[in-house]
């Protein structure tokens, strides 16, 4: 922490020496780059929504595979989760951008980013759903079985609905985490850029400094707080009474 402060001060002093000021004011930034901030915010939201939706779909599918009565399916799904839960997002993005072309697979930057920020949350989504399943009394599974339900019917009627309901708060966190992971998009050229990328853009075209970051940070924070509130509301509504 001490060193971070020191570093911050050094950078600030360097800026002041070079330009006479450390950065533009918030007002100046907003008047000059307001539109760009808005479209960056929109890009971040778009990426977040697309990645989260895809992650949930994949997460549910992987989770069903992980409890399937077929061993190879279970093993494949387990492997998937282990890989994408444990790989750093930046590493995955680098792999998609630089390694795939060697296999003659060239994806657009947008698709690369979206893939990276979908695969990783999908593994976490599955982990949260598995945890949610552990809250289900095995007796309910037996009851469903004794009523003649097949595996698919059991999953659809009993297991998934309860797993989803009891993991709303984790899913809320996952949505926030997914949004923060979209910052990876700043590492590739995108137009319009995302909320982190906009800062690099501003700082290469003007002297936004830390203030440019601050605006992005506030936008991230406000969104996260809103997501968190909505998440708790939903959780209170759908939580399974026991």
């Amino acid at each position, binding site marked *: 922490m001490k060193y971070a402060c020191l570093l911050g001060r050094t950078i600030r002093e360097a800026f002041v020496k070079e330009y006479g000021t450390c950065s533009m004011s918030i007002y100046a930034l907003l008047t000059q780059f307001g539109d760009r901030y808005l479209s960056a915010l929109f890009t971040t939201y778009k990426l977040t929504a697309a990645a989260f939706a895809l992650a949930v779909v994949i997460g549910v599918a992987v989770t069903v595979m992980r409890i399937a009565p077929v061993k190879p399916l279970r093993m494949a799904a387990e492997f998937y989760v282990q890989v994408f839960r444990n790989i750093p997002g930046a590493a995955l993005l680098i792999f998609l951008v630089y390694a795939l072309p060697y296999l003659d697979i060239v994806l657009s930057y947008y698709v690369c980013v979206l893939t990276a920020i979908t695969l990783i949350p999908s593994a976490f989504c599955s982990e949260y759903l598995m945890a949610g399943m552990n809250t289900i009394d095995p*007796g309910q599974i037996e009851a469903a079985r004794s*009523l003649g339900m097949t595996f698919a019917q059991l999953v659809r009627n009993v297991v998934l609905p309860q797993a989803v309901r009891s993991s709303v708060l984790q899913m809320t966190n996952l949505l926030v985490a997914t949004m923060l992971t979209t910052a990876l998009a700043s590492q590739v050229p995108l137009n319009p850029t995302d909320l982190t990328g906009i800062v690099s853009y501003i700082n290469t075209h003007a002297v936004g400094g830390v203030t440019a970051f601050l605006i992005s940070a506030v936008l991230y924070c406000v969104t996260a707080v809103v997501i968190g509130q909505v998440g708790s509301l939903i959780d209170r509504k759908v939580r399974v*009474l026991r």
Partner: protein
Amino acid sequence: MAQEQKRADAARQVPVIELRHIDKYFGSLHVLKDVNLSVQRGEVVVIIGPSGSGKSTLCRTINRLETIDAGEIIIDGAVMPEEGKMLAKLRSEIGMVFQSFNLFEHKSILDNVTIAPRDVLRVPRKEAQEEAMRLLERVGVADQAHKVPAQLSGGQKQRVAIARSLAMHPKAILFDEPTSALDPEMIGEVLDVMTELAGEGMTMVIVTHEMNFARRVADRVIFMDGGSILEENTPQEFFSAPRSQRARDFLNSLGDRER
């Protein structure tokens, strides 16, 4: 006329539930030892015995909630396979009521009763709901239909569980200690429903510790100990003059209260 009678007799000869030479181990523990049991249509069989005697395991084995190591389970003439669609189908023909109710916690009482008929038997929603309401009425919890299980008392939950079983029109219902998790004042309401069912000719296999109830409703009492069926008898004979020494010891250990 005579021929029809004969055919009816023949139909009666096929047991609803038949267990042949069932063996089961929990690790090295031999929990079911060459158990044979057949339950005729309309029969009420009560299984009693000390704890650890294998009676619950036997009950759960009938619809293969427990795996078995040897033997055959035959439901109304059809061999129950280890897994697959046929297993699910045969299970749907045998109802089960558990000690801990096992209602679906996230569904309303009404949905608890309709879900299996709708999804397994493909009964249309409206029809399933009407039938469910009739059944809930019959077990006396129709006024709770739109609550969730957590809002009901144990006795009410168990009556819902019975209605849920009945909604599948089962050929028989298994009861695995249905009153053991209930407060004493709620046992009666559940036993009343069961007595009524027995009176209507439902085929039932009941594991219970309620001896008075057993004496009243059983057509046949099965006494188990150490994983074997030691005695099969009429309730009158069993409770007044048990044949085996262990059954005598068991009944004596219950004391005067139960007898």
